[in-house]
């Protein structure tokens, strides 16, 4: 594995409409780990994730992948290395499930046999195998989320060994409890396979249970970054969420 392999945010400052959304955030993620971003609504988690994906441009600071600024990466090459599952994808056209997942292969040189094989594998990996042949527009919200996960996995399917990055923006939103745990296990499995994985999560207990590293954001600033038990400090969390939170005996974080 590349010695410098990392996705790094360096002193990012992002403002939108005159409001400062990220204040000098520096954060480095490494392959083989699941990094979870937590924080209250409006903390800047999604903005940080989008900026690290290269979707948003920072006003100050830069994001580097393997030491090279994202802006210096050819777009398609970057797309073969990192994929992002967005919070919501509005797709009003009636693609079949396989076609949606196949869109993940568009940064790659077309190869029908290989692409079909990867689409099938990604559908299985995302628990969406049973949705084959369905029209995307007719799926439920949770089913759509799984299909989008499969698309994103198909995009970087071969990149595990070459330092692929999987970014997930609230992947658990709208899923039932079984699929919430499933999607985080899948994220962990991707990390174990060599991907770098960064996920924005709202559920602190999912973060505590699955993350290798946790970054806590509030009001556009990175307050803490470290091991889950260290970063998810009840007194810090109580302060930023504005309600008293405690760690129960089993480790679960709960409102008092």
């Amino acid at each position, binding site marked *: 594995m590349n010695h410098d392999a990392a996705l790094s945010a360096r002193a990012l400052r992002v403002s939108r409409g005159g409001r400062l959304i990220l204040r000098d955030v520096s954060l480095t993620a490494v392959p083989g780990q699941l990094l979870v971003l937590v924080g209250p609504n409006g903390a800047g988690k999604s903005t940080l994730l*989008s900026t690290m*994906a*290269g*979707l948003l441009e920072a006003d100050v600071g830069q994001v580097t992948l393997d030491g090279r600024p994202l802006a210096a990466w050819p*777009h*398609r*090459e*970057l*797309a*073969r290395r990192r*994929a*992002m599952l*967005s919070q919501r*994808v*509005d*797709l*009003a*056209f*009636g*693609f*079949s499930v*396989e*076609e949606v997942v196949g*869109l*993940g292969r*568009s*940064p790659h040189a077309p190869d*029908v*046999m290989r692409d*079909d*094989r990867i689409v*099938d594998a990604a559908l299985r990996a995302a628990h969406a195998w049973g949705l*084959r042949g369905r029209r995307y527009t007719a799926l439920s919200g949770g089913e759509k989320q799984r299909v989008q996960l499969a698309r994103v996995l198909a*995009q970087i399917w071969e990149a595990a060994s070459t330092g692929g990055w999987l970014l997930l923006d609230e992947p658990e939103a709208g899923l039932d409890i079984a699929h919430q745990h499933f999607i985080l296990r899948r994220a962990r499995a991707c990390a174990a396979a060599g991907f770098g994985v960064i996920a924005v999560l709202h559920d602190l207990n999912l973060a505590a249970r699955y993350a290798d590293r946790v970054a806590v954001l509030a009001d556009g600033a990175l307050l803490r970054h470290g091991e889950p038990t260290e970063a998810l400090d009840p007194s810090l969390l109580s302060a930023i969420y504005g309600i008293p939170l405690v760690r129960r005996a089993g480790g679960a974080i709960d409102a008092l």
Partner: protein
Amino acid sequence: MNAVTAVLPRPHSRRRAALAALVTLLVASALWSLSRGAIDIPATEVVAAMGRWFGGAAARGDDNVVLMLRVPRLLLAMLVGAALASGGATMQGLFRNPLADPGLIGVSAGAALGAVAAIVLGGSSGSWLVAVLAFAGGLGATSLVYALGRRHAGVANLLLAGVAVNAIAMAGVGLLTYMASENQLRDLTFWSLGSLGGATWKSIATIAPWILLPLACLPRAAQALNALLLGEGEATLLGFRPERLQPLLVGLVALAVGASVAFSGVIGFVGLVVPHLLRMIFGPDHRFLLPGSALGGAILLVAADALARTVVAPGELPIGVLTALVGGPFFLWQLLRRRIGEGVR
């Protein structure tokens, strides 16, 4: 297990068969159209006439009717139909709206303003001045829409700028119509209902590059358009550059549709209905939809023109009226059929 999944039927082969069927249908409708008219010429005689022409043999009988009148008109119908339908498919993808039509970017209204200005102010119904001003008007209006709409990222602003420019151009058309004399009004009406009657070999040679170039380029953007259906952000994440693609596609569609409108007037419905129908049957994949729409648009316009020339012979129906008259109910029927079918399942 793996062997089974590897050969699961995919849509690729079905779509290839559909494209082959569309080509066959186009050839059949072309032969039918060439044989119909003020005098009916059997299809075998049409083929023989073309054979004599290609072979350099002397013309016989009705050869000149076929070669000098009907073939240019057929080619114009094909070019215009293909341009309108692929322009519609592209705009629907770019705007992520299955109800978009090529007129959204102002090209039709701008062309109408140019044509009307030529007829009323230029005092000319000579087709060349009308065509040149219509083409210039279409491109000018689209440039204006694009210049106004690009001030903010995203396609919504382009849409709104298009609505505004369309309204202004149509107000200009209204004003000029008000000023027009009786004779000019007749020309105006004729133009605004669409006609392929001006087709000559010379006009084909003029119009063909403006349409064939975009037709050849658009399918190259098929995968990008597919990705754009997910949204501009998702397309960017997939390695495409929506901010570069947008002006390119708008420009190509403006060229093709502008040239079509300049020579044939406003022929509605083709750009909306053909891609929509194909999408209902084969799904929204632009790798199929763009060539499919070009073929489907050509077929629709060839058939419509053959009808327009023969239904009220020796008179001629405006083709724009016919496409809407035949296409409208067919489209509604498809729409109702699909809805009911989906509701039952």
